[in-house]
């Protein structure tokens, strides 16, 4: 399926999706309140069947915090990139997609730890990589640590 056909189908199920320019994969952003319902439709719909979530990335956009989901379909082999963001840097919250794609459990724990984004309804949101008493979220752009030797 080409990106244009894919775009049509997705607009049909979610008119609020905002598409952005990307030469490679079809990219769209969605408000964070709509994310869970949209994700459910992406996996459930017979024509789309995005059943393989292969990457979740946290991005610090300075003004906002963004989470990027890379989706693949094991049947049709088309790829979709879904983005969602929150402007709240103090207490950012985004819905978890764990119950749809189980792989999200670990990826979200990683994003939680490195960016401090909390995922609602996550079954087990704990630290994964850093020490238990680590202060701060190291992957944020404003993170400071005396231990770093800058170059």
């Amino acid at each position: 399926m080409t990106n244009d056909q894919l775009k049509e189908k997705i607009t049909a199920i979610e008119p609020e999706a905002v598409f952005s320019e990307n030469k490679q994969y079809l990219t769209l952003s969605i408000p964070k309140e709509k994310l869970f319902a949209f994700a459910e439709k992406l996996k459930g719909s017979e024509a789309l069947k995005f059943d393989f979530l292969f990457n979740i990335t946290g991005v610090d956009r300075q003004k906002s915090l963004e989470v990027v989901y890379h989706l693949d379909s094991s049947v049709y082999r088309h790829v979709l990139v879904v983005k969602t963001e929150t402007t709240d840097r103090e207490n950012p919250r985004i819905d978890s997609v764990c119950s749809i794609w189980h792989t999200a459990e670990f990826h979200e724990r990683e994003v939680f730890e490195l960016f401090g984004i909390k995922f609602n309804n996550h079954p087990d949101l704990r630290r994964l990589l850093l020490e238990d008493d680590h202060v701060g979220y190291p992957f944020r752009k404003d993170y400071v640590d005396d231990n770093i030797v800058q170059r």
Partner: protein
Amino acid sequence: MTELINVTEPDKLTDQPEDQDKLTEQLEEQEYIINMGPQHPSTHGVLRLVLSLKGEIVKNIQPHCGYIHRGIEKMCERLTYQQIIHLTDRLDYLSAHHNNEAVCLCVEKALEVEVPERVKYIRTIIDELGRLASHQLWWCSFGMDLGALTAFFYGLRDREKILDIFEETTGSRLLQSYNCPGGLMNDIHPNFQKRVKEFITYFRKKLPEYDELLTGNVILMERTKGVGFLSLEDAISYGVTGPSGRASGFACDVRKHHPYSAYDKAEFKEILYTTGDTFHRYKARIDEMWESMKILEQLIDNIPEGDYSAKMKPVLRLPEGEYYQRVESCRGEFGVYIISDGNKTPYRIKFRSPNFSNLSALNIIARNFKIADLIAIGGSLDLVIPDIDR
């Protein structure tokens, strides 16, 4: 969380047999927690698993990672693209070349550089040699996990032959850093083709030996057949890729479905099994070695003449935007996601590591099996810990 062990009145229990039986009984009824790792020879590194057991049965596994978390992604935000390549080697050191290649392909895609045909062929060949070396090492350590020390010596004997080829051409045995954006660091050694062909003839004779030594072995069969099932739905949902995923029937070979470099020029089969138990994960890797040799044979004689690198600017600035590249590393799908803001360093770079997703499935695979089977299952997933932690 499972309940912690709480033996009623332990002080009153003595060494007497009836008291000891009572203790055993109580222990068997309750779940208890033991800690495995981070320094444990069969976790292949510094993975820590917290297991809740009931008797000998594993009820729940909680992986604790991060004992080798080096923050590579954050470091990359201050490095140029040429420098990043050397750090990607250190993620999954057994598929160093695949990781390099992913970054290079991603940068080339962003800059819209067309690399010479020769580069594509050489990259593919080195990829497959690396895959062979990695699977050999996996075979050694899997054998060792199950107590077959002979496997260790046989596998590493053949691996040294590949490392010799690497050393001659790339200059390094393990972490080659042979790629650079636009092509390769150097041309291949004049002996390269000859030695690869020699190696294939040699290894075609030796690979059946692996089967004779280990595959038909009664102990291996007993410990792997029917142990540690992963269903197709779970494999997809947990994102288990690579040979481990394909053993469950998940057609996830990036080389086939999203071809890169010269993989579209070679004929090969995607190894698929359906059972998804430990034995088939083992079998998938052995079969992949045969396929790798097939790819090598097809490409090695057809390396086109030409440059070993495209003309590149010394300072690379990727145009603003987002780029993603997937490659098939030895353990599954490796991905590089670069967000560029037009500077010479990436704004954010993310490595999708195959082991990270594969590890997340360990809990459902090993649950309700014996703790001894956990070793076999962990070995069959072929985890490389620095790649999980990054």
